[in-house]
C-alpha cells in the first residue's frame, strides 16, 4: 500500500523536476531529456496507482497505456533529436535564438 | 536443506564479487585497469549468483535460461571491454604508470 504512494510521489517529483528543467535549460538536448523524464514521471504515477487493487492483480489498463506510451515516447524522441540537429545546423548552436540577441 | 545452504553461500559469494567489482571501478587509477574490475562483477559476481539460483530452479529449462543470461552478459562484458579499450588507446588516453 505504502509502496503505491511512495512511487506515485516519486513520479510527481520526476514530473516537476522535468518541467522545471524544460523551462530553465536552454540546451535543446536537455529539453528533450526533460520531456522524457516528465513522461517517465507520468508513467510512474499511472502504474503506481494501478496497483491499488485489493486482489493483488494490478489494473491492466494503465499498464497497456504505459506500454504504448513508452513506444510513442521513443519515436517522438527520435523525431525531436533529428529536429534539434536541423536547428543546430541552421543556427550554429543547439539552442533556440535568444529574444534579446535578435 | 543442504542445497539451500550451498545456494545461500554461493549467492553471498557472488554479492561479494559485485562489491569487489564496484570497489575496483571506484579505486583503480585509469580506464584500462577499471575494465579489469568490471569483468569481476559479470564473470564471477553474476556467475556465482546464477549457479546459486539455478540450484533451486524448478526445471532444467529455468536453469538453462539463467545460464543463457549469464553467457549473454559475459559476451557483452568481454566485447564492450575490448571495444572501450581499443577506442581509448585510439584516442590516446594515457596508460597509468606508477
Amino acid at each position: 500500500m505504502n509502496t503505491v504512494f511512495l512511487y506515485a510521489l516519486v513520479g510527481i517529483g520526476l514530473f516537476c523536476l522535468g518541467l522545471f528543467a524544460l523551462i530553465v535549460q536552454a540546451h535543446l538536448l536537455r529539453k528533450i531529456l526533460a520531456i522524457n523524464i516528465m513522461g517517465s514521471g507520468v508513467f510512474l504515477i499511472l502504474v503506481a496507482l494501478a496497483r491499488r487493487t485489493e486482489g493483488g492483480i494490478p489494473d491492466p489498463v494503465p499498464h497497456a497505456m504505459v506500454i504504448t506510451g513508452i513506444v510513442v515516447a521513443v519515436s517522438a524522441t527520435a523525431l525531436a533529436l533529428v529536429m534539434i540537429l536541423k536547428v543546430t545546423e541552421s543556427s550554429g548552436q543547439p539552442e533556440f535564438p535568444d529574444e534579446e540577441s535578435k | 536443506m543442504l542445497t539451500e545452504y550451498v545456494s545461500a553461500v554461493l549467492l553471498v559469494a557472488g554479492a561479494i564479487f559485485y562489491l569487489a567489482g564496484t570497489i575496483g571501478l571506484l579505486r583503480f587509477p585509469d580506464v584500462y585497469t577499471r575494465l579489469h574490475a568490471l569483468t569481476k562483477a559479470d564473470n564471477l559476481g553474476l556467475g556465482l549468483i546464477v549457479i546459486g539460483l539455478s540450484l533451486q530452479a524448478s526445471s532444467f529449462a529455468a536453469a538453462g535460461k539463467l545460464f543463457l543470461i549469464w553467457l549473454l552478459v559475459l559476451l557483452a562484458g568481454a566485447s564492450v571491454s575490448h571495444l572501450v579499450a581499443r577506442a581509448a588507446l585510439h584516442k590516446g588516453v594515457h596508460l597509468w604508470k606508477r
Partner: protein
Amino acid sequence: MQTLYFALALFLLLNLFAGMWRILKGPTAADRMLAAQLFGTTSVGVLLLLAQASANTVLHDVALVFSLLAALTSVAFVRRAWLSKE
C-alpha cells in the same frame, strides 16, 4: 531464505549507487560509460534475486532482455559518440 534474497538485492542496489560516483567523476567519457555498463550487470543480478524472492520466473525474461541489450549502448558509444569528439 526470502529475507536473504532481499538483503542481497538491497546490497547490490547499494553497490549500484556506489558505482554512480564513477558516473559523476569521470574523468573520461569511457569511465562514465563503464560505470553504466556495471550498472546494467548489477541490475541483472538485482532482477534475478527479486525473481527468486517473489518466485516470479517472468522476471527472468526481463533479465534476459537486459542482458541482450547490455552491449547496445556501449557499442553505440564506442561507434558514434566517442569517435567524433575532438
